[in-house]
């Protein structure tokens, strides 16, 4: 009998603590759905168990009474809050589910902050390390992706709450799928070997396919889901093929190991080039770079708008995190080969996105094409191939996430009352009929266009600076030109809102408490971080550390 203890893996719970919090929330939500009216019988023992784990953590982990373990305290609070929420919202299960999901995402965000200050902080830079036998990276990219993803989740939950109720598409499975998708995204940002990366990608994709089709009676939603699923499955297969080839060529599944194998002069370069191209196709699909962007307009248009907001904001952040890690870590020795290709794709995305958005009439489609353009801007940071570019891409994705959630939040309010897709003419005279909504929309559009002093400006400034520092002048010039073009169609929307008269029977957009809260926070972040970007920008700059 061999001694099995030598095979026991090291489990570093702290490196995936936010994901554990989210998963617990998923399990609680599913159990409560099954329990129906007897949900108290689920919530009470689960709440007690969570609080009990918290007490145990406090006892084991705390070094002194003055320095209690934060996860322990958080678990106690969350456990008590779970029971309190279940009692307080006993009559409104829908709100209860949304609150519990929000509790999970909030806990994940707090745990991410705890990771920053208690685990990864060394004073000036993040410490990069890998855990779980090299499967999970614990570095700046992983943590910053978590911030973007969980903040997006936390914003989308209240903004879309009343919208799904109005459209009558709310299902108790909605929040668990949203949270599972967010977990997949966070793990995608942290995955340090290709198997974990692929599985995390599938977790987020499967949940998103279903969420896209969750308006089951809406044909556009069905079409979007099928399109997304079929194209996404093909892209995943191509990605997997690329991984298989790189494994043949280098004999390693871990990203740093792939880079080591590539640096070996005897490695089959042609095979590696093929695998690089296949991986680029697979990842390019997820982040919607031209020419892999065909699905974007239809899926953005057909999906329920709150899902669109989540998909646009969080998936992009996670997909780019995976792309950064794959290309900057694993394919680094082949940089001479991929940098020109990816730079051309970035240029094409910016140009095509800006050009196609010009002629759109449906606002969601317009934002979908602008998402393609924004994928191009974020890619500038990757091809810069520098620490500045790395942090610029992370920061850009954060700014884009907040901004696009605000913009789509505005559309949600209009769509709720119109009960149909929002075209530009639906925005006519919005500045007069509902000035607050028009102001928020305008703020988001200005930020998307990158006009100072909004958050979007700070983001674009970062990627353009990084591009210039790396000598990619042509790409930056193209970026500035397309930004000017895109400003035209964003301003066209604003013109419709403020310069035209409202239609006489124009419906008044509908608000709700959740929508108010979510959009106010998002718009506040756009203004505040636009004026005072240093808080998170510093973090992004210090987070430019990759586990290698």
């Amino acid at each position: 009998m061999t001694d099995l203890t030598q095979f026991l893996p090291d489990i570093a719970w702290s490196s995936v603590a936010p994901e554990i919090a989210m998963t617990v929330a998923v399990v609680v939500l599913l159990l409560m759905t099954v329990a129906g009216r007897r949900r108290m019988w689920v919530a009470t023992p689960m709440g007690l168990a969570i609080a009990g784990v918290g007490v145990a953590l406090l006892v084991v982990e705390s070094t002194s009474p003055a320095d209690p373990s934060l996860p322990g305290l958080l678990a106690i609070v969350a456990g008590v809050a779970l029971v309190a929420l279940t009692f307080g919202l006993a009559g409104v299960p829908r709100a209860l589910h949304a609150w519990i999901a929000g509790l999970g995402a909030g806990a994940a965000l707090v745990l991410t902050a705890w990771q920053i200050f208690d685990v990864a902080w060394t004073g000036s830079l993040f410490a990069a390390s890998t855990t779980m036998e090299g499967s999970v990276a614990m570095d700046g990219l992983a943590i910053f992706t978590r911030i973007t993803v969980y903040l997006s989740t936390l914003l989308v939950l209240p903004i879309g709450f009343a919208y799904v109720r109005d459209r009558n598409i709310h299902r108790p499975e909605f929040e668990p799928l949203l949270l599972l998708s967010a977990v997949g995204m966070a793990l995608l940002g942290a995955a340090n070997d290709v198997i974990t990366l692929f599985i995390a990608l599938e977790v987020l994709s499967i949940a998103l396919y279903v969420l896209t089709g969750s308006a089951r009676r809406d044909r556009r939603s069905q079409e979007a889901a099928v399109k997304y699923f079929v194209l996404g499955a093909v892209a995943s297969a191509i990605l997997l093929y690329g991984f298989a080839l790189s494994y043949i060529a280098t004999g390693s599944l871990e990203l740093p190991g792939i880079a080591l194998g590539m640096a070996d002069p005897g490695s089959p370069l042609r095979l590696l080039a093929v695998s690089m191209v296949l991986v680029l196709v697979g990842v390019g699909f997820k982040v919607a770079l031209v020419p892999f962007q065909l699905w974007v307009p239809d899926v953005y248009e057909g999906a329920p708008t709150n899902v669109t907001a989540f998909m646009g904001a969080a998936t992009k952040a996670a997909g780019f995190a995976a792309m950064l890690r794959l290309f900057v870590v694993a394919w680094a020795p082949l940089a001479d080969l991929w940098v020109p290709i990816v730079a051309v794709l970035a240029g094409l995305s910016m140009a095509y996105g800006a050009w196609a958005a010009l002629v759109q009439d449906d606002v969601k489609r317009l934002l979908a094409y602008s998402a393609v353009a924004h994928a191009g801007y974020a890619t500038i940071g990757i091809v810069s191939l520098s620490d500045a570019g790395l942090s610029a891409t992370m920061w850009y994705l954060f700014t884009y996430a907040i901004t696009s959630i605000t913009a789509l939040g505005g559309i949600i309010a209009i769509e709720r009352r119109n009960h149909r897709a929002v075209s530009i003419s639906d925005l006519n005279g919005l500045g007069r009929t509902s000035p607050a909504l028009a102001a928020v929309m305008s703020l988001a559009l200005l930020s998307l266009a990158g006009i100072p002093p909004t958050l979007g400006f700070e983001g674009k400034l970062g990627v353009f600076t990084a591009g210039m520092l790396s000598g990619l002048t042509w790409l930056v010039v193209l970026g500035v030109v397309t930004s000017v073009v895109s400003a035209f169609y964003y301003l066209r929307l604003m013109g419709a809102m403020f310069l035209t008269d409202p239609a006489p029977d124009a419906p008044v957009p509908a608000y709700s408490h959740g929508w108010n809260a979510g959009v106010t926070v998002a718009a506040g972040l756009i203004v505040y971080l636009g004026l005072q970007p240093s808080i998170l920008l510093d973090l992004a700059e210090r987070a430019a550390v990759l586990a290698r």
Partner: protein
Amino acid sequence: MTSLDIVFILVAVVTGGAAVMTVTSRNLVHAALFLGVTLAGIGATFLLLAADFVAMVQVVVYLGAITVLFLFGLMLTRAPIGRETLDSRNRPMAMVVSAALFGILVVLIVRAFGSNQFPATEPISSSVADLGMAIFSTWVFPFEVVSMMLLAALVGAVLLARRQSGDSGTETRVTPIREALDDSTEELDRAPAELGSGGER
């Protein structure tokens, strides 16, 4: 050429042929059965590589479960089983694209290895115990995340399949698909019509 090579060529021809038949067959049931043959061929390839356990998993999961699932799906959804065309106008285009992709990949991969072939080694036999040890030590984290993927798929399937009263989007009615069915056959159009009527209340 060893006997192993001959067996491999036979298996490869059968697998490849069945794969082609899967996508060219005009009858959905035949396509599903050909898919079964393809998957069995892949299982046989695993056996040739001395990966006994993977071969068994391939047979049990893919051949046993997936193919049967396909057939049940066809049966239960009353999908058009007959000989009607499953083609779209994009068929020539799709053939060109896939043939080009196949050609490019074959050329690139063959040229990538060139003359420096991998040293011919005896197939390494890996026992189930080795696999289990690898899964639960080195790959324990991805293994755990797989369970999350399954959970997402399960919950998603429930969301898509479960019918709920008052379950509608902005546009409702799905037009029933009426194929060229002669009226004498049983009430074939009932199931699609039900789908569009908003479910039972």
